[in-house]
């Protein structure tokens, strides 16, 4: 009897151990080895490379036409639903509009927990009450909020474990990106380039929430780069960092991108290159120290944030970063030195027709905003924007959503007032032109040449996913979610979601069945084979 009891206790212990292991601790090692668990989607871009590529191939070019919707989860919140979910061992974690987070049974779409941030009434985030997703480590998920807090939620209950204010939201700061976990650090950057903030990237201890380092993207007095700002303009210099970075464990370097200098469309008063606005930054994740930088657009006057996920590509011995920039050029940069390999336009560009000494596109004087307005391509929303591109290591192609839209830029010299909108300009589409359009473009990162394009009737905000099934998934402003052949660019399947796609898709598997998920309208949709 005693022995029996003992045995059953052991069994109970073992089963509870197994149960807790089932939704297991996500260790830093698991994040590094994410390729070993293709059924899970462990971080914003899928893995540290920023590829947004799934090695799952159950859904492939031969059967994609048979895809069917499996479930939809409605947040019932308004505005743009920009999330990329995480999936870990059968549980899907995501954020909704208005700073809510939720965990679902990834197979059925049924909620397990929900968390709603109580947002102050006076937040005024630019561009919608959006959030792009979570990060996961241990038994916590991490979340940046519109009132500029970084919070850790219990991944089993959604309860708040720690909550840290990164900055005073009343000064125009907010957080909209999905954090990046490196080792035991939660790395986030701020939004707020429309408010005259001073941008930064922060790292928090995942266990305690204690801030370990802060890298100001606008250098202060005495720091290198400070001389690229006129007078006190650095204090309100902008350069937010509102898209998730990538990480190269081989060199222990994390790559982050920054947004526009403030005011976004008026260069007067901030003469100089305005470092490190519109740049790619290579940082030491342990200390936040800058290793090198590359600035895409110097002294920007067109709101061309460089906030596109930095994509790590290896070509033999060459270790590179590719970025299709908002300014219309596709850049390939040496990942160890920060030196430009080449740049090539991938969309219509009118602001540059020459290169500087470093091979960087140089700006034409007449592209500057004027009181009457001057027409420039790409427009302020850019040739692309925050929606993720994808790199497919099988086709060796880089796929990006391109927007063919030009705008008229006119000056509007607003004075700076803390926490208030601070653009210094206005932009709007030219009514006399043909309608703007968009395209999903496949770029060869060896040459910068466009291999194929899939035309969208109007500019879209959907990101792109590639998979080992030879497929590329993306959406459009008309509400279609589309599967294309990654080699030919032919559409194999589409589904009408009922509202524009403002998110980047991902893929996961449960019990041997592959799913593709995308947020559109107020719903998160999943698709699989019947």
């Amino acid at each position, binding site marked *: 009897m005693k022995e029996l009891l003992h045995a059953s206790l052991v069994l109970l212990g073992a089963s509870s151990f197994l149960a807790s292991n089932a939704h297991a601790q996500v260790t830093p090692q698991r994040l590094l080895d994410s390729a070993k668990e293709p059924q899970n989607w462990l971080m914003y871009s899928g893995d540290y490379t920023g590829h947004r590529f799934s090695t799952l191939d159950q859904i492939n070019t031969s059967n994609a036409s048979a895809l069917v919707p499996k479930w939809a989860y409605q947040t019932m919140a308004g505005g743009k639903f920009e999330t990329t979910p995480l999936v870990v061992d059968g549980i899907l974690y995501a954020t909704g509009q208005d700073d809510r987070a939720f965990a679902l049974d990834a197979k059925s779409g049924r909620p397990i927990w929900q968390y709603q941030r109580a947002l102050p009434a006076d937040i005024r985030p*630019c561009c919608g009450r959006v959030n792009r997703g979570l990060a996961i480590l241990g038994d916590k998920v991490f979340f940046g909020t519109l009132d500029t807090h970084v919070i850790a939620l219990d991944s089993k209950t959604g309860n708040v474990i720690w909550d840290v204010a990164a900055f005073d939201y009343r000064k125009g700061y907010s957080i909209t990106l999905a954090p990046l976990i490196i080792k035991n650090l939660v790395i986030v950057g701020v939004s707020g380039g429309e408010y005259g903030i001073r941008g930064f990237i922060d790292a928090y201890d995942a266990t305690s929430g204690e801030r370990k380092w802060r890298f100001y993207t606008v250098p202060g007095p005495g720091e290198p780069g400070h001389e690229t700002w006129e007078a006190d303009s650095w204090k309100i210099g902008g350069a937010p960092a509102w898209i998730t970075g990538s990480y190269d464990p081989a060199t222990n370097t994390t790559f982050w991108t920054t947004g526009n200098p403030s005011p976004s469309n008026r260069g007067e008063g901030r003469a100089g290159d305005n470092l490190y606005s519109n740049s790619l930054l290579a940082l030491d994740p342990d200390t936040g120290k800058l290793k090198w930088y590359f600035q895409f657009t110097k002294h920007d006057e067109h709101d061309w944030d460089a906030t596109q996920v930095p994509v790590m590509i290896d070509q033999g011995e060459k270790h590179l970063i590719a970025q299709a920039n908002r300014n219309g050029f596709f850049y390939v940069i040496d990942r160890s030195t920060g030196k430009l390999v080449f740049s090539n336009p991938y969309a219509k560009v009118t602001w540059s027709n020459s290169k500087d000494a470093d091979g960087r596109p140089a700006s034409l004087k007449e592209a500057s905003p004027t009181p009457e307005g001057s027409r420039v391509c790409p427009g302020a929303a850019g040739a692309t924007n925050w929606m993720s591109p994808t790199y497919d290591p099988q086709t060796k192609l880089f796929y990006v959503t391109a927007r063919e839209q030009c705008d008229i830029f006119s000056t509007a010299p607003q004075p700076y007032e803390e926490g208030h909108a601070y653009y210094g300009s206005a932009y709007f589409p030219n009514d006399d032109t*043909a309608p703007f359009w968009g395209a999903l473009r496949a770029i060869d990162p060896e040459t910068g040449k466009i291999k194929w394009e899939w035309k*969208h009737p109007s500019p879209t905000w959907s990101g792109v996913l590639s998979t080992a099934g030879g497929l590329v998934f993306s959406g459009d402003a008309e509400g279609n979610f589309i599967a294309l052949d990654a080699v030919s660019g032919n559409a194999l399947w589409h589904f009408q979601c009922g509202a524009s796609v403002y998110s980047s898709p991902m893929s996961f598997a449960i019990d041997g069945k592959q799913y593709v998920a995308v947020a559109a309208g107020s719903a998160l949709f999943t698709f699989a084979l019947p």
Partner: protein
Amino acid sequence: MPALNRLKKIGSLFQMQTLAVLRGFLLAFFAAIVFCLALTQLSAQDTNPLANDPKASKLGEFQFRSNCAFCHGLGARGGGRGPDLTRAQKRHGNSDADLFRTINEGVPGTAMPPNGATQQGVGMTDTEIWQVIAYIRSVQVKAPAQPLGDAAHGKTLFFGTAACSTCHMIEGKGGRLGPDLTTTGSARATDYLVDSVRNPSRRLAQGISEAMKEFSQEYETVKVETADGQKFTGVVLNEDHFTLQMLDLREQIHLFEKDKLRSYEKSRESLMPAYDQKLLSDKDLQDILAFLLSVGAR
């Protein structure tokens, strides 16, 4: 002692009650004061506290460019989707309070969003909204527009020899191929209206707007040939990459999957004929505009 205690208790109870009554009275009194203050505050907000302040109006111009010009155009003269705001007559109310409400709350059922809800801008504070109103007042035409022409004759032309009503509806009468013009007179600048008649292909009118889509569908012309050889010409009601919804010249709706069509050709050459001087004299055009304005003002 117990009796005294009880008395004390009663006394303190009495005091408490008195206090409570007094407190209630005081509360009511303060509430009344606050209410009165709120009323004065409210009435103060009926008119622009920054009216006729040139500095406020200049700041308002910058705010306008950042937040409003995207639709209403530089100088507030109207763009492709936003009405001309230099008109003295505003469709959704002329008073300062009306303008404040329109800007702050938007206009349901139209493309005008509530303050801070656009994809392009960030919200404006109350002061910034008043600055914008000061700016709008500064560019507003001072005298009401002179009657352009003979509205009654314009109406005869519209529904008669000028044949506008073949394709355009006003207050429920007319055709469906072109945009309904009932509110156009109040929404568009005169230059825009003249241009739309003389050169309709230069800037196509906008049709359906979808909630999350940045750009509206335009009145593009489309020619279609089906797999079985039927041919249709008409306007695009809506389309996406895969499908087309169109209205043909006989006002029949057709719904097509593009890959099942033999041919499909879209054009930005409007189906509307360009009304040159021979088709429509300047005077007759002015009469039609006067008619549109008179309807729009209603």
